[in-house]
């Protein structure tokens, strides 16, 4: 039994080696997200047949882009921390607190505040501070990031519930919603925004010292420290940037629904994590980047869209989602780069 399994794996390896020598294989190896592209093509093919072509209609592609915007931004946030080999579960909490503050500070039907566009720097600062606290807890108090960020998530979510008294706050400043649901040249604004954040993140990772150090920490923290990387400073900085990104997403979420409540942030962590994994960002750190996060999100959103279009029974959707997820990850993760499978 054991011998057979080894044979299968080595057989796969032989084919992979042979394939990577062909010109198509060289191209496949060159593009960092080729696995994800193949996965997306497969998903698209299945759904195109399943929905008699409806899946690939322009209107649906625009819908997918519109829906992918906010999850993509969140995924771009969380994946940075994961690249460093840490974990960030504070997403829902930071989104909740920025959402509630956005609701209470923009023109709304509960109080007389109206800060207008000042809300944008406000959520950036608020998210940044929350993220920085994550980083400080992780580095200065030497708490595992998993539990520090989980604690932060609950604290912020609870505070958000308290401030909003658990109810939703309708927003009267319609400008934000108008912008977020608009299209530029047929492409949803929120998607363009997500791509822009993605490009910034990409350059941050590839072209700056911060990016290099991030990967160094993710690869091997001890070695990075010995090589003179100021690990604590980088970690705090990355957590802060991630917090800023969550803050922006919180505001976008509020703008989209034209209403704010603490619980609008619920159910966002899981899709973001899924996108990270499907995108091929290794949960053990050091592997993957912004492109992976972006592709991962598109696959996850396309998947959810396809399940609705194909009219998969809601009672079955979770299960189907799980199975497809496992298949997608099995197909896309780069086992060569990940030394340890935890």
């Amino acid at each position, binding site marked *: 039994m054991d011998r057979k399994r080894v044979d299968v794996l080595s057989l796969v390896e032989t084919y992979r080696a042979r394939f990577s020598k062909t010109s198509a294989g060289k191209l496949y190896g060159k593009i960092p997200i080729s696995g994800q592209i193949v996965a997306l093509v497969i998903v698209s093919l299945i759904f195109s047949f399943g929905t008699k072509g409806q899946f690939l209609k322009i209107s649906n592609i625009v819908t997918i882009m519109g829906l992918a915007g906010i999850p993509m931004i969140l995924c771009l946030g969380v994946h940075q921390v994961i690249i460093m080999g840490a974990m960030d579960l504070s997403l829902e909490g930071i989104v909740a607190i920025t959402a509630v503050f956005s609701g209470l500070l923009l023109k709304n039907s509960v109080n007389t505040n109206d800060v207008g566009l000042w809300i944008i720097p406000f959520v950036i600062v608020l998210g940044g501070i929350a993220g920085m606290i994550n980083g400080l807890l992780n580095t200065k108090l030497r708490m595992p990031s998993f539990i520090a960020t989980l604690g932060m998530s609950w604290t912020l979510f609870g505070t958000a519930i308290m401030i909003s008294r658990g109810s939703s706050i309708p927003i009267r400043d319609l400008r934000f919603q108008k912008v977020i649901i608009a299209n530029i040249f047929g492409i949803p604004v929120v998607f363009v925004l997500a791509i822009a954040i993605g490009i910034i993140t990409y350059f941050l990772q590839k072209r700056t010292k911060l990016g290099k150090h991030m990967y160094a920490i993710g690869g091997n923290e001890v070695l990075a420290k010995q090589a003179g990387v100021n690990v604590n400073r980088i970690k705090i900085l990355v957590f802060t940037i991630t917090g800023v990104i969550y803050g922006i997403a919180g505001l976008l979420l509020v703008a989209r629904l034209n209403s704010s409540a603490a619980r609008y942030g619920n*159910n966002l962590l899981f899709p973001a994590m899924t996108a990270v994994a499907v995108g091929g960002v290794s949960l053990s750190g050091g592997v993957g980047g912004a492109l992976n996060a972006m592709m991962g999100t598109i696959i996850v959103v396309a998947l959810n869209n396809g399940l609705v279009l194909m009219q998969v029974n809601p009672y079955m959707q979770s299960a189907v989602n799980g199975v497809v997820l496992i298949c997608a990850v099995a197909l896309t993760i780069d086992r060569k780069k990940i030394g340890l499978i935890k």
Partner: protein
Amino acid sequence: MMKKGLIVAVLISLLFVPQLFAQASAEKADTTLSIGIRTLTNPYQANYKVGADMYGKIKDLPVVTLTCEGSSEKQLNDVRALVARTNGNVVFMIDPNESPNVIPLARELEAAKVYWVSWWNKPDDIKVWDYKYWVSHISFDGISAGEYTAEKLFESFGYNGKIVALQGLLSNSIAQDRFEGLQNVLKKYPNVELVAYEAADWDRTMAYEKTRNLLVAHPDIKGIWAANDNMALGALEALRAVGKAGQILVTGTDGTDEIYEAIKKGEAAATVYNDSVYQSGIGLAIALAAKEGKIKVENLPREHRQYFAEATNVDINNVDEIIAGSATYDFEDLFGAFTRPMD
């Protein structure tokens, strides 16, 4: 010695302090009307007090509100203390903090011979008819709520076209009840077709996303039925994103300010309001009728002992009235809201 005596005197006098601050009304010989609720900080719960005060005014009887702030223990102790203070000359409307809490409450009030009515939560195997002083247990009817909102939604497009539905958490019984109501009405109108339904877990964000996807699959739908207001509002924003808000109407259930606004703007067709003003008023009315001998508990049919009631239906015709809180209540028709018995 002197000092000790003084301390004792102060301590003894302290015992009387609570009486000084006690709600003065409770000291009359009239029957006290009391409600046992969770808190006054959320609008739904706070409206229980509005209803109780309203009924107290009609009957010219003192009202005492007991809030347990989430503690079943406190709820029981407060009820016990008020029974003692009024010598049992009291009736209760209680929204049990947790469903098992009705058992000690029922025992306590049975022993004290105090009539009471409960709302919402009760373990299924505990039957009201096993008690003499527990007059009724009432819950709002998910099926009739689903039927009413479906009916109004279909009316908005002339009973002819396709709809989609957003379900709550599939495992919740109230989600299943409301959906059953929708299906009942669908059977009545063969020209209305439910082309797809999705579970959006009561969540606004999820409802938004599911609706965006549903609108791609079924661009020709004429209405969206949602099992609660939160999902209806998520669906409404999804419609707005594709420029169809107001053309395709939504319906929900719960009765939130945001859905009222949407009803006024012509973007939502209807909702069902679980009106706690009515809940406490009618609960006290039933308990008081039993105490005054106007109804004989042992003669009440079982279907009036534990039943589902119809909540307040809200559409464009009465939405202003509901927002202003100026709805009129008929607390004389004790079982007027009855829709179906609870087994």
